[in-house]
Every structure is written in C-alpha cells, then in structure tokens.
C-alpha cells in the first residue's frame, strides 16, 4: 500500500511538478478555446451546407462530416504534423493540433447543429420570412436560438470531448497539460504527476459531465 501511495499519490513530487503542470494547463486552455470556438463556427457552416437547397453542397457537407468522423483524430494530427512537411508545408505543433481537431470537431458539431436545425418546425422559417426578415436574419434571430437550445446537451457533451481530445497534442510534443505531466514523470520516475494531471482534467470536466447528465435526465422526463 505504501509503495502504491508513493508511486501514485506522492505529495512531495506533486508539489514540485505543480508549476510545470499549471504552465501546461494554460496551454491546454488556449488549445481548447481555439478548437472549440473555430469548431462551433465551422460546424455551423457545414450544417448549413447540409440543409442547403443545392444538391452538390449537401453532398459535399455529408462527405466532409463522414470523412472526418471516420478518421481517428490522432491519425489526422500525425498526418498533418508529420506528413505535410514532405509536401514542403511546415507548420507549428499548435497550428497542426488546431487544424486537425478543427476538421474532426466541426464534423461532430455539424451533426449536432443539423439535429437542432431539423428540430425547428418549418413554419417558423416561413413565418419569420413572411414578416420581412431576410434568410440570414431568420437564421440568426429565430431559428438558431431554438435549435441551439434543443441540442444544448449534445453541444455540451461534444465540448467535453474536445477538451479531452487536446491531450493528444502531447503525442507531437506540444507542451500542454499531459505532455508536461509526462515530462515530470520521466524525470522523477514516478507516476504522481500523471495522477495530478488526471485530477486537473477531473476538476475541469466533472462539472460539465454532471451537467450533461442533468440535461439528459430533464429531457427524458
């Protein structure tokens, strides 16, 4: 038992690695805000493409979402980070992570938005436009607020996935939370920094996971 506590819950080592982990957390938060913000915007455009009257735009949108939902995010990330330099395109680890996860996440967000847009009755579009609102105004002021409210739990649970996803950036040595914890582990030969990183993720995400469950129960009731 002592050896277990020493290996996983070594307070001394946790305290020493804390500053490094906080630097990593900061990077994780930056990654999250970039990927979530761009994913929410990109996903909306992909979803609108899916609802379009033009057939080619609909097919393009479906091909995009299916393609990027079929590829593991880590494969996308490695392909962009390690593959593109062969084509003479050099990009920073941060940019590689943002691009890879944007492609992945915008397709997940797009599917959520799509479900939301479908849930708003067609009469709402027609009514809003007959009052003289333009299609863009109808979307922004009438349809989108209702759509987002209807799929809020799914948007939220997808956002939880994005935060978890950023830990993959450690694979290409971007010094976010998990990468720094791994560094601290290899220096100390002790897994406590990794456990501390896990605690950071829990503190960050447990409330959101609870909230998702709460929403889902309310919808079911």
């Amino acid at each position, binding site marked *: 038992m002592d050896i277990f506590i020493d290996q996983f819950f070594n307070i001394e080592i946790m305290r020493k690695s804390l500053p490094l982990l906080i630097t990593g957390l900061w990077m994780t938060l930056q990654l999250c805000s970039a990927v979530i913000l761009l994913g929410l915007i990109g996903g909306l455009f992909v979803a609108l493409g899916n609802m379009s009257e033009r057939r080619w735009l609909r097919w393009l949108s479906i091909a995009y979402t299916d393609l990027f939902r079929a590829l593991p995010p880590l494969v996308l990330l*490695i392909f962009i980070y390690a593959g593109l330099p*062969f084509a003479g395109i050099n990009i920073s680890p941060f940019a590689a992570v943002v691009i890879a996860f944007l492609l992945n996440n915008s397709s997940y967000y797009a599917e959520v938005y799509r479900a939301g847009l479908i849930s708003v009755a067609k009469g709402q579009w027609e009514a809003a436009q007959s009052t003289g609102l333009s299609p863009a105004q109808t979307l922004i002021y009438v349809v989108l607020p209702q759509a987002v409210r209807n799929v809020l739990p799914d948007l939220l649970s997808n956002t939880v996935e994005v935060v978890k996803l950023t830990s993959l950036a450690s694979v290409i040595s971007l010094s976010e939370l998990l990468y720094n914890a791994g560094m601290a582990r290899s220096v100390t030969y002790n897994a406590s920094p990794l456990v501390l990183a*896990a605690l950071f993720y829990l503190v960050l995400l447990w409330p959101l996971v609870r909230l998702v469950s709460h929403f889902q129960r309310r919808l079911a009731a």
Partner: protein
Amino acid sequence: MDRFLQTFFNPVVMAQYTPDIIAGIWVTLQIAAAVIIAGIAGGLLLACLRSYRIKTLNFFIICYADIFRALPPLVVILILYFGFPSIGIQLSGPMVLFIVLAATLAAFAEEIFWAGFSSVEKGQWEAGIATGLGFTRTLAYVALPQAVRLAIPPLVNRVLAITKMTALGSAIGVSEILSSATTAQSFSGSATPLTMSVVAYLVIFLPMVIVARWLESRTAWKKR
C-alpha cells in the same frame, strides 16, 4: 503534381510496407473487437445493477461512470503503462489499451443503457411485478428489450468514437495501424505510409459511420 504523387502515393513504398500495414489492421481489429464486447457487456451489467437502486452500490457506479467520461483516455493509458510496473504489475501495451478503452466504453454505455431504462414508464415496471414476474425478470423481459432499442443509435456512435481511439496505442508501442505507419514512415523517409494508414482507417470506419448515420435517420423518422 508529380512530386506530390511521389511523396504521398509512392507505389514502391506502398508495395514494400503493405504487409506491415495489414498486420497493423489485424491488431487494430482484434483490440477493437475485444473493447466493443467487453465495454458493452460491462456497461449493460452496470446499468442493470443500477436499476436495483442499492444506494452505496449506485454511488460507486455513478462515480465510475462520471470519472471515466471526464478523463481523457490517454491520461489513464499513460498512468497504467508507466505507473503500474513500479508497483509490480506489468501490463503489455495491448492489454493497457484494451483495459482503458473497454473501461471508457463501459462508462458511456452504462449511461446510455441507464437512460434507456429510465425512459421505460413506471407503470410497466409495476405491471411486470404485479403479474408475478419479480423484479429481475421484469428487468430482463420488459425493460431491457425497450432500453436496448433506444440505446442502439447513441451506442453505435460511442462505439465508433472509442474504437477509433485504438490509434492511441501508437503512444505506448502497440503495433496497430498508426504505429506501423509511423514506423514505416521513418524507415522509408516517405509520407506514403501515412497515406496508407489514412486509407486503412477509412476502409474500416467509413462503413461504420454510414451505418450510424442510417440508424440515426431511421429513429429520427420514427419520432415524427
């Protein structure tokens, strides 16, 4: 254009590394199958146990489901892979990958099945028990079939997301598709093996994505 093809679709490199990639596909499929079976079975068992409403037990089930839904799998993989040998537990890379992904899937599956159980009306439980089925048989014959039907679309999506995570094995030296490809890439000095891994993943997962889309559209129609 020619240089592009030479870099990403070099036929010589392709021929040379095809056996490695195929070996990787085999590893990915085996781990994925084990994860799916263990994860769904585990999640279903936990959801059934939860429906007995034993307070202390439920507390642990809910904590387990919350923690494994909140933690990034890669963190848990690294803790098991690098931490456990120091306390005398040696786990192989594939074993660690299997345990963590199955545990993660079980947590999500538990929540999905539980949502299914919760949606079965109270009257049905009461009716089942009143006809003398008893709680366990009401659970098995009345609630479970309905819960499973509701669970299938979200479950397929979750299974897809988690089996894709077998690629994380490359971080701990499991020779699945991605790690075969990155190894081949560094030996050959060509990006072609990476293209091959992308194609391999598409061949495996694109049909699953399309099935998931079809399942979802079917349930969406029924709702209306």
